[in-house]
């Protein structure tokens, strides 16, 4: 059995229930697996957020719960002395609250900044996946606190070794998006649907007509050869989501009776490419 959490970023609203449930569980209370978390300053369930888009007409946010990944081959474990970090048979990575005293290297080693330094105790600290609760036969809950708190089923807990588990079904049904900082290393926390980049725009009829253009054909051709196509929707909008990053795209817009328009775009980030006002032929 291997405990895992699937983080479906597409479903996260950044409601912070997981964040607070984690603080509620660990601030001021320790266990054999962790010393008490300070009242403020550590975010074992960190929610990383960024704003997407460069034009008010199309703005989205990415909100990605990012606890310790519980890596298959943890960098923190390599950096630790005296076996202060260990991986349990169920995959949970634990910083031993006694052996790790004074080992700030454990904080620095984490590629995703999920380990925090407790100045008072001189101790590195991080998410335990609530293993101390899962181990406890008297504890009535069945999931880590963050997962139990999630109203959106954006966090799913289960056994990664059981092909029929809910977590494996969710992973199979969604796009796995490996954290870049982890390279190609596997981990017990699996991120899904973390967005890459979108290109979007709106097509209008000639300005004096004050109308959007519905059904204009938009073709986006990636330098890698992949072609994406759609028609503008009821609002005249087009959008290609989750495009490969750092690629050049050619956008071609065509509509019967109008001159074609084209743009160059680059997916270094999310872009609203243009408000396109068509010209009649």
């Amino acid at each position: 059995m291997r405990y895992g959490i699937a983080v479906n970023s597409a479903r996260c609203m950044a409601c912070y229930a997981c964040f607070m449930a984690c603080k509620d569980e660990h601030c001021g209370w320790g266990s054999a697996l962790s010393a008490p978390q300070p009242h403020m300053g550590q975010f074992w369930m960190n929610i990383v957020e960024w704003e997407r888009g460069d034009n008010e007409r199309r703005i989205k946010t990415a909100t990605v719960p990012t606890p310790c990944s519980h890596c298959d081959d943890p960098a923190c474990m390599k950096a630790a002395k005296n076996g202060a970090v260990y991986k349990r048979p169920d995959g949970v990575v634990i910083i031993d609250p006694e052996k790790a005293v004074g080992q700030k290297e454990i904080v620095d080693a984490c590629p995703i900044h999920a380990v925090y330094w407790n100045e008072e105790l001189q101790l590195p600290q991080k998410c335990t996946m609530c293993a101390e609760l899962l181990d406890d036969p008297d504890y009535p809950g069945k999931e880590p606190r963050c997962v139990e708190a999630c109203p959106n089923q954006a966090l799913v807990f289960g056994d990664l070794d059981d092909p029929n588990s809910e977590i494996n079904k969710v992973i199979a049904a969604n796009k796995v998006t490996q954290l870049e900082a982890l390279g190609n290393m596997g981990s017990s926390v699996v991120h899904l649907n973390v967005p890459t980049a979108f290109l979007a725009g709106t097509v209008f009829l000639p300005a004096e007509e004050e109308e959007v253009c519905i059904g204009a054909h938009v073709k986006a051709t990636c330098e890698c050869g992949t072609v994406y196509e759609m028609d503008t929707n009821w609002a005249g909008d087009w959008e290609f989501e989750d495009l490969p990053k750092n690629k050049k795209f050619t956008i071609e817009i065509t509509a019967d009776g109008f001159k074609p328009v084209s743009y160059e775009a680059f997916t270094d980030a999310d872009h609203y490419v243009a408000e396109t006002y068509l010209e009649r032929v």
Partner: protein
Amino acid sequence: MAKEKITHSICVGGPMTIHVKDGVIRRIRPIVLTDDDAQGWVIKARGKEYTPQRKTTLSLLGYCEKDKTYAYDRIKYPMIREDFIETPDGQNRNTENRGKSGYRRASWDEALSLVAREIKRLHATYGKETLTAITSSHHSWGLVGYKISLFNRFFNMMGYTRVMDNPDSWEGFHWGAPHTYGYYWRLGGPEPFDMLEDAMKNVETMIMWSHDPDTTRGGYSAQESALWRWWMKEMGIQFIYVDPFNNFSSVKHADKWIGPRMGTDAAILEAIAYVWITEGTYDKEYIAKHGHRFDEWAQHILGLGVDGTAKTPKWAEELSGVKAADIKAIARRWASTVTTGGSGMRGGFGGACRTVGGTDYARLLVSLLAMQGMGKPGQNMWTGTCGGPMNYNFWFGGYSDPLASIAKAPVCDVPAANTVSQVLYRTNLPDAILDGHYEWYGEGFCGGGLDFEFTRHVYPAPGCNKVHAFWRYGGSFYGTMLDTNKWTKMYQSSELEFVINQDIYFTPETRHADVILPACSNLERVDIGEVGNSGNGGYCSHSQTGNSWQVIVYQDKAIEPLWDSRSDFWIFSQVAARLGWGEAFTEGRSEEEWAKRFWQFSDLPKVMSWEQFKEKGYYIVPVSFKEENVDPKTGLIENWDRYPGFQWFAEEKPCNTPNHKDFQEEGLLGTLTGKFEFVSESMLYWAPDDEIRTPIARYKDSWEGHKSLSADKFPYGMISPHPRFDYHTHYQQHSKWLWEIPENRKVINGNPYLICRINPKVAEEKGICEGDVVKLFNDRGQALCVAHITRRVNPETIHVYTSSGIYNPVELGKAGAVEKGGSINVLTPGRLMGDYIPAMVPNSCNIDVVKAEADPNPGQGWEYMLEAVDKQQEATQRPMNTSIEADIIFGEKEAK
């Protein structure tokens, strides 16, 4: 681990499972249902089956409840202002020092005896009307302890000048919508009953006008409806969001967001009507049958009315900043697809209705929904909260139910009636005290009829003395009322000879009292309640339909009252005893015995004994008790008694919805004509000269807005919607965990500055960078915030959440001092919406912004708390913008 004690309770963040270890609260969890609990409902729509998770939800605030219980700012002991002198004539009491003075610890006996002596003196000198008292809403939950119950019992028995609440969260719908479609008994809001299923089956487009459901959470329904909206989103329903702030729901769910300049929503609605009328794309048959004076209104829209202006999309573009092409596209999508929509929290709320002209915005929105056949399948007034399946046949009281108050029979033996007729009005309480005179229209909450909006009140009431004492109970109006520098002036007036503050926390208002009475929290006393139930017949009834599960909770005492705090019931009964009517007040019942009365007068005894209920701690009401309604395949409940809101009207059937009026059974609405009034007969009858709320609802320039004189000096519109990271003022000051959310606050020099949101264009013009301290200001006040630069607000608008629980002026107790705690209501106008409309309008607020410096003093206004503010915070601050972190973890995000 040692076995932990488990109890349950309710807060505005949802129902709680509370673990207690050795007398200390260990953790707060949701209720995870067991096999003994009821089966859930299943909605079958578009080839799929949808059923809620077998657990309740808690908002982030619920998870702060433990932290809040042990908070640094709890009032630990009774206290008396150190320079308060109990003069025999009530004069020379250093009242000008209220808000500045410190306190000394007192015994309960000393504090209570002082309170009793003063009440006797005041009554003997001026009569019972001389004392006024008011509570905030929702600082506790439970039918015994909530304000309409316990507070009313005490003050009604004593006799006092009642303060009418204003419908501060939905002003425009309350004072406007009833003139178009009735529903005054729902305070202007629609019927959400069974709308979730209707939407799941039929809707193609959702109009979310001035609405952020993930933030307002159906009122107090935790995150119960969050999953519903994902279901709707993932089945392909198109979501259109309209809000000057691309809010937290919009930025995730919107297929189309438009951000009009605040206060111009009515113009967009008129332009949409223009498109429909000119293109003939509205339900003509429905309007012919159910509309009143539609043709006159249509003439007005087409420019053939008195003002001679056609309400074209181009006309609306100039006012709102939203492109005419976008308005037309939305109009056509709305008309050509099955569309449901509404405004704000439960369909009849939202920031747009809290602007000048919010009444007419509300009326126009209802008018447009009517034009598309409101009540036909999938065409309704509903916004994705409330309206979940519910068992309407199982009765348990909600807080506004007449039958669910310890002030009323049958719960008590002898009802408590107030013998003082004089009243005050909350929005203008300081004006009344300071000026000694105030006049206004309306009954505050006008559920009794359209005419209730037009009753006239004068303070002091004829034959009555003025108010000379104030008993404040629970919460802070510095964050929720307007132009709040007035409150400081009121507190420092010698007109108020005696001020009592009874609260759990040392709130900004507590700091202005003469005597402070420390109450314990909900977790330290016994109560009983249903999650989200505001009343089954009271105002906004059946709001528990905002939950996926109907949960009734025995709110057991998790721990003993902390420090010297006592339950509100104990405090009131002690004062009553000292005034000579202690036994009449308690009727010999303990708090638990009062709680049991609500069990006794509900349907609970049919399903479980009092002892079983106490033992289990909660009861989940199945949506149907009937065996034949269970899907044999899944065991889920697939049928229940449905009462789809408003469909009776479209289908011309006798109305059978819960909480309906007799005339609805004859197919009539609650307007004077019983129809949708496009020209309001009630306005023509009662206030034909009302310049804001005209007989024909229409856009008008606001007396404070982008075209008013003050816009030259203060060019930005500040919007301050209901907060995402707080509930009223009840969490921000108490749980510092909330300060660690980058979208909420940033701590500098020990002070937690509130985040304000500014468009990059404005930031560039003003030289403001991400994370800078900025000063928001106008002629009424000045407030320091921290800037978050974002394209989620339009360049005309500055967004900052209202309801800061923290009020922290840089100069203590000085009205007009720079406010750094986030109570931005020092900026909002105190002027009511109109001569006839006693509504507050926080979102009609012109301000300017400049880059500023943080106040060098850490938490200056907090020094009178019993524990100094923790100065460690700054070292532990998170960076506001986590995109650098995001770049490291997920790859770079910013364009190069």
